C-alpha cells in the first residue's frame, strides 16, 4: 500500500462501500440509470386511482426491487404521482396477511388452513341461508380488484350461491356518474379521451381537484398548447383552482342551481347549438322551458357568485370552440348528485360540445377499476352493462356462462345503504366484504358498528388483516395484492390495461380470483370453472358478455394486444378499430339514438346550517401521498412521511381570528352526529363559514350526516353543518 492508497483508505476516503451502494447503472430497457442492478422489468397498470398510469416494476433475481413509471405509455409518459412511485411498498409490507384468521370465542383470532377457513365459510353460509333464506347473504366489494375477479365474484355469488344483494364501494364514488350517463346517454359511457385535456380551448372543472387527486391528468392540462381558459368551480381555492385562469368559489352544494342558471343564460343569449340539439337530443324544449323559469337572483344568492361571474361562465362556455367539462367527487357526492352531473351533461349537449376533440361531459373516475366494476361487478347491473330485469339479457348471459337462466335474479341488487339497512333490520345476516374498509370509509360509521352485532357472520377478504373492518370479522381471508395477480383494469377513458404478477402473495395468501374459484369448488359449482378457469379465460368470457353492448370489446386480441398497445379503449368490437372518443357520430345509446336532457327542481340539502351548527364541513383527499383510508399508503414509510400525521382542519384565517383560533391550535368540531378534535391550519383555501377536513382519518365520518342522492344512492360526503371552537 503506497501513501496515496493509505490516504484514500484511512485519511480521505473518497470512495468505498457506502459510496458504491448508491452507484447507479443503466437498467434493462429504457429505465435509464437505476440503483441495485435490476435484470428484468414487468409493466403493469397502477392499482390506486383511475388515471391508469402504467408502471415498470424492476426485478432483481426474480424479486421486485424498484419501480419507475412507463416512459412510453400514452397515459402517463414516464410520470406518476407519489402513490404510483411507491406502489410496491404496500405489496412488500411485512404487515401483509399471510394466512386465514378465524375469530375465537375469546374475541382473538387464530390462524387456520384454507381448508378449515373455507369449510367454515361454507358451513356458516349454508346455515344462515337455511335459517333465513337464500337472500339473507350479501357481499360488499370494491373498485380495487381486477375486472375478471369482479365478474367472478358477482357470478359466483348471484348465480351460484343464491345472493340477490351485493354492491361495491364504487357506490361511494362513481354511482352518480353511472346513473347520470345511463339516463342521459342510454348507457354508462364516459365519452372522454385524455387527449381532450390537451385539445380544449375551454376547460371547466367542477368539484374536481386533479392537481392533488389525479396529478397525471393535470399534466395533460399543462401540456395543452391552446392557451386554454381553465375555469374551476369549487368552494375551495384548491391547487387546481390556483392553477386555473378563473376560480368560481361557489357555496357548497349550489352547483345544480348554478348549472341551471348557466343553461338559462345560454338559452337566452342563443349560445346554443340548435342543429346539434335537434339532431341528437330529446326533451330539450321541456328543459328550455324549465330553465327559463329559473330566478337568476336566486342563483346568485345560492351560489354566492355575482351576476357577472355567472354570465361570464356562460359566455366562456357559449363562445368556446372546444369546451370540455370535468367533474369528480364534488359533484358525485351530493344530495342531488345525479341531477348535477346531468346539469353538466346538459350544458355539453346544448352547446354541441360532444364527440369532437377537446369537448365532452367527462367524469373523472376514482378507483383504479371503478370502471370495471360499473360494467362487470354484477351488482346493480347484470354482467357487461346488461339489465337484470331484461329477460333477453338474462338469457344471453346464461347462455354464455352455460347456466340455467332461472339462476339469474330478476332484479338488480339494492344499493349499499339499503344493504346496511337490511342488515340492521335483521334481514341480511351473512356479509362478505372484499377489498374495502367500510368501518372507516362508510358515511355512517356508527351504523357500521351497529350492524356488526346484527350479523351472524362477517367475512372480510383483504390484503391486510389489521384494517378496521378486518378486525371485526368472524373470518378473515388473506388475499393477493395488486402486483400479485393477472387481469384487466379499466381507467377513466375506458382504457383496458393489464395488471401483471411481479411478486407472490405472502404465506398462504391467494389471489382474490383463486379464493373465489376455491369457494366455487366448495359449493360444487362446476360451471364456474368453465367460464373462469383462469384470468385469461375469464377475460374471454367478459369479451363474449360485452359483445353487442356499447362497451363491446370483443375485438381485442386477448391480453397480448392490451399489453402491446399500452391498453385498449372500449368499444373495440370485432373487426373494428378502438374508439378514442365516444359520440363522434352523434349516435347515443337510447333506442332513439338520442341523448336526453334530464332535470328536476333544485332542493336544498336536508340538513342546513343553523345558529347551532353555522359552518359547512367539506371533505376530500388531503394530499397526493394518501389514498382513501390509508390501509395501503400508510405502509410506505416515504408516503407516510409526506402525509400529515394527525387529523387537521383547514380554517379561513379571518374566520380563525373571529374564533380566536391560531395556527396549530387544537379545535373541537361538532355536528349533530358526533365530535372530533383536530389541529387548526389557517388557509385562504377555504372560505369563511366553511371548513375542510381530509377523509383519511377515521374520526371524520362519524360527524357526517348520512345523506344520499335519491337516484344513485351515493352518499353526500361534502356537506355537513358543524360548529367549531378552540380547545384551551
Amino acid at each position, binding site marked *: 500500500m503506497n501513501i496515496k492508497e493509505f490516504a484514500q483508505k484511512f485519511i480521505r*476516503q*473518497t470512495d468505498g462501500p457506502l459510496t458504491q451502494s448508491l452507484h447507479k447503472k443503466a437498467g434493462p430497457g429504457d429505465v*435509464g440509470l437505476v440503483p441495485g442492478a435490476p435484470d428484468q422489468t414487468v409493466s403493469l397498470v397502477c392499482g390506486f386511482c383511475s388515471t391508469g398510469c402504467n408502471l415498470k416494476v424492476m426485478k432483481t433475481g426474480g424479486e421486485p426491487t424498484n419501480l*419507475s413509471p412507463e416512459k412510453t405509455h400514452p397515459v402517463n409518459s414516464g410520470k406518476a404521482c407519489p402513490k404510483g*412511485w411507491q406502489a410496491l411498498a404496500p405489496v412488500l409490507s411485512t404487515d401483509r396477511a399471510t394466512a386465514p384468521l378465524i375469530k375465537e370465542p375469546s374475541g382473538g383470532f387464530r390462524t387456520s388452513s384454507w381448508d378449515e377457513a373455507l369449510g367454515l365459510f361454507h358451513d356458516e353460509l349454508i346455515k344462515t341461508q337455511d335459517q333465513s333464506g337464500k337472500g339473507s347473504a350479501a357481499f360488499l366489494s370494491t373498485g380495487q380488484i381486477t375486472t375478471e375477479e369482479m365478474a367472478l365474484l358477482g357470478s359466483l355469488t348471484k348465480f351460484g350461491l343464491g345472493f340477490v344483494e351485493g354492491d361495491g364501494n364504487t357506490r361511494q364514488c362513481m354511482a352518480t356518474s353511472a346513473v347520470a350517463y345511463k339516463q342521459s346517454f342510454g348507457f354508462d359511457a364516459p365519452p372522454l379521451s385524455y387527449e381532450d385535456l390537451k385539445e380544449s380551448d375551454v376547460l371547466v372543472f367542477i368539484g374536481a381537484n386533479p392537481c392533488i387527486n389525479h396529478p*397525471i391528468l393535470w399534466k395533460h392540462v399543462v401540456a395543452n398548447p391552446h392557451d386554454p381558459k381553465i375555469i374551476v368551480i369549487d368552494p375551495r*381555492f384548491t*391547487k387546481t383552482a390556483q392553477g386555473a385562469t378563473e376560480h368560481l368559489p361557489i357555496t357548497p352544494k349550489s352547483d345544480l342551481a348554478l348549472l341551471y342558471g348557466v343553461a338559462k343564460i345560454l338559452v337566452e343569449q342563443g349560445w346554443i347549438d340548435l342543429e346539434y340539439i335537434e339532431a341528437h337530443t330529446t326533451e330539450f324544449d321541456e328543459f328550455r322551458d324549465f330553465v327559463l323559469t329559473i330566478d337568476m337572483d336566486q342563483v346568485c344568492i345560492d351560489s354566492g357568485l355575482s351576476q357577472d361571474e355567472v354570465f361570464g361562465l356562460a359566455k366562456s362556455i357559449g363562445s368556446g370552440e372546444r369546451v370540455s367539462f370535468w367533474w369528480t367527487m364534488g359533484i358525485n357526492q351530493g344530495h342531488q348528485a345525479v341531477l348535477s352531473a346531468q346539469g353538466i351533461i346538459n350544458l355539453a349537449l346544448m352547446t354541441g360540445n360532444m364527440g369532437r376533440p377537446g369537448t365532452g361531459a367527462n367524469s373523472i373516475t376514482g378507483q383504479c377499476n371503478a370502471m370495471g366494476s360499473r360494467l362487470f361487478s354484477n351488482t346493480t347491473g347484470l354482467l357487461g352493462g346488461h339489465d337484470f330485469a331484461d329477460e333477453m339479457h338474462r338469457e344471453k348471459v346464461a347462455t354464455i356462462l352455460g347456466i340455467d337462466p332461472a339462476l339469474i335474479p330478476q332484479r338488480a341488487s339494492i344499493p349499499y345503504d339499503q344493504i346496511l339497512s337490511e342488515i340492521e333490520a335483521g334481514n341480511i345476516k351473512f356479509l362478505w366484504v372484499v377489498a374495502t374498509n367500510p368501518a372507516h370509509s362508510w358515511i355512517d360509521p356508527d351504523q357500521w358498528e351497529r350492524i356488526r352485532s346484527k350479523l351472524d357472520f362477517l367475512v372480510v377478504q383483504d390484503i391486510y388483516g389489521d384494517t378496521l373492518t378486518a378486525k371485526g370479522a368472524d373470518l378473515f381471508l388473506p388475499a393477493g395484492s395488486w402486483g400479485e395477480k393477472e387481469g384487466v383494469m379499466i381507467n377513466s377513458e375506458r382504457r383496458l390495461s393489464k395488471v401483471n404478477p411481479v411478486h407472490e402473495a405472502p404465506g398462504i395468501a391467494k389471489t382474490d380470483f383463486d379464493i373465489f374459484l376455491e369457494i366455487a369448488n366448495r359449493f360444487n359449482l362446476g360451471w364456474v370453472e368453465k367460464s373462469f378457469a383462469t384470468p385469461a379465460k375469464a377475460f374471454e368470457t367478459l369479451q363474449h358478455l360485452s359483445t353487442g353492448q356499447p362497451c363491446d370489446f370483443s375485438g381485442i386480441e386477448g391480453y397480448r394486444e392490451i399489453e402491446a398497445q399500452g391498453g385498449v379503449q372500449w368499444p373495440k368490437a370485432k373487426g373494428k378499430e378502438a374508439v378514442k372518443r365516444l359520440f363522434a357520430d352523434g349516435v347515443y345509446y337510447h333506442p332513439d339514438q338520442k341523448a336526453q336532457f334530464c332535470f328536476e327542481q333544485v332542493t336544498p340539502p336536508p340538513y342546513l346550517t343553523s345558529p347551532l351548527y353555522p359552518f359547512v364541513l367539506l371533505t376530500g383527499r388531503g394530499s397526493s401521498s394518501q389514498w382513501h383510508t390509508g390501509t395501503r399508503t400508510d405502509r410506505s414509510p416515504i408516503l407516510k412521511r409526506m402525509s400529515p400525521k394527525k387529523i387537521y382542519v383547514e380554517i379561513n384565517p379571518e374566520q380563525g381570528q373571529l374564533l380566536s383560533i391560531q395556527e396549530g391550535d387544537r379545535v373541537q368540531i361538532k355536528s349533530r352526529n358526533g365530535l372530533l378534535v383536530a389541529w387548526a391550519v389557517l*388557509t385562504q*383555501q377555504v372560505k369563511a363559514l366553511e371548513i375542510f377536513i381530509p377523509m383519511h382519518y377515521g374520526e371524520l365520518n362519524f360527524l357526517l350526516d348520512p345523506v344520499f342522492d335519491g337516484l344513485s344512492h351515493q352518499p353526500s360526503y361534502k356537506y355537513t353543518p358543524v360548529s367549531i371552537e378552540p380547545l384551551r
Partner: protein
Amino acid sequence: MADQTTGPSIPKPGEQYVFEVDLNTCTGCKGCVTACHNLNGLKPEESWRSVGVMESISGKLSQSITTSCHHCLDPACLSGCPTIAYVKDPLTGVVRHLDDQCIGCQYCILRCPYEAPKWIPSLGIVRKCDMCTERLEIGEETACQQGCPNGAISIGVRDKRDIAIQGGWPVPVAAPWEYTSPTTQYLGLSAGTKTRELEEHYEPEKAHLPLVLMLILTQFSVGLWGISFFLEEMKLLQTISVVTALSGLVSSTFHLGHPEKAYRAFLGFRTSWLSREVVFFGLYAPMAAGCVGADWLIGNGWVEPSYLTGLLVGQWVAFGFGMFGVFASAKLYQTTPRPLWKGSKALLGFPMTALILGSAFAYSYSPLESHQWLLWVLMASSQSWLLLEIRRNHRPKGLSPQLRSLLQGPLKGEWNLQRYGLFVFGLVVPCLLLGYPDSAPVSSLMFYGLLAACVFERHLFFKLGIGPRMPKGEAG
C-alpha cells in the same frame, strides 16, 4: 432517457449547475420526492427532496415549494465538516458528500439552514442530494426532473457572479440568502408569503445525550482545572479533572455514527470549529493527564522536584488548551444558523458552566471556611447566568413564539428544574453554607444539584436548538 441533447450544457469556468424551479407549475404532487427515493435507491424513509407549502398573508395563495440541496456557493455543511467529507465540484458546482469519509457527527445538519443533509441512522452517516451527478454526466434527467409531471424542475447553468449579484431568496422562513448563498432559482414566486405551520413545527429537536454529557463534562473539567491553581488540593482536583475530561471525550464518541473513523475529525481544522474543538480537547486531555502523572511522580519522589517549574508551565498550557476547547465548543454552536445558539447562549453559558461546576466541586471537595470565596464565585456566576437565561426565555424578543410555546408546554418541566436548580443550589444553599461552612453533605448536595441543573440546561439547549428550514406543511 439518456439523451445528450436534452441535458443541460456543461458549465464553463465561473458557472455551475443550479436547480431551476418554476413555482407556477409546481402543484405540490410530491412526485419528485418519491422519484428521488426510488431512482437513487434510498432507505425506506429517505428522500433528498421534500415539498412544503407557503401561505400568503395577503391575497389567496397556497404555494407548494419543492426543495432539496441548494448546492450553495458557500456551503455551510462543507465549511463545518470536521472530516472534509464535503466537496464542491470545481467543474459543476455540485456539493457532494463523501459517504465513506463521513464519521456521522451530524454537524452539517446543524449548519445547513435547508435540511439538505439527512441523517441515516441505519448507516450511521449523513447523505444528501448530489444533483444526480451520474445522470447529468450522461445527459439524463435528474430523478426529481423525471418525477415532476409538469416539468417544474430543471437543471440550469448559471454564472456564479450572477447568482451572487442577484442574491435574494424568496423563501422567508429559511436563513438569509447571504448565509450560504444557495443557488436554486425559484421562479415565479409572489412576495409576501408566510409558511404554513403544521404540528411538525412544534416538535422539539433531538436531545443528543452524548453531546450533553460531553459538553458538561469537558466544561466541568476545564473549570475545575482552572480553579485548582488557587487551592492546595491541586493534585487531587486535577486528577478528578482529567478523569472527567476523558469521560467527556469518550461520551462524545457515542454520538458518532462511525466512532472508528473519529480520528479523522481534525482534518477540517482550517474552517471547522468542530475540528478545532476536537484538536483543543485532544491536546488538553493528554496534556492534563501528563501533568497529573508528572505531579504524582514528583510527589512520590520518583522524579526530580526541579521539574516543578516545567510542570507549572505545562499545567497552564493545558489550561489554555482547555479554555480554547470550551471556546471552540461554544463557537461551533454559535456559528450555526440556529436562533437560540446565536449571541450569548453558548459563548457565555459554556464558560459559566465551567466556573459554576468547577467552583462548586472544589468547595464540596474541601468545604473550609478559607474556601468561602468559591461560594462567592459560584453565587455570582450562577445567578448572573440564571438572570440571563430568564431574560432570554421570558422577554418577548428573547425567543420565537414556537420556542416559547415549547418552553411553556412540553419542555416546561425541564426549564423549571434548570432555573429552580440554579436558584436553590446556586444561591440559597451557598448562602446557608456561608453560615455553616463545613457541612460536607450539604456542599456535596449543592454540587450535584448544580450538575443536574446544568444537564437540564444543556438538554434544553439541544431541544430548543431548532433551525431555520424550508417550508413544511405536507398537506395538499
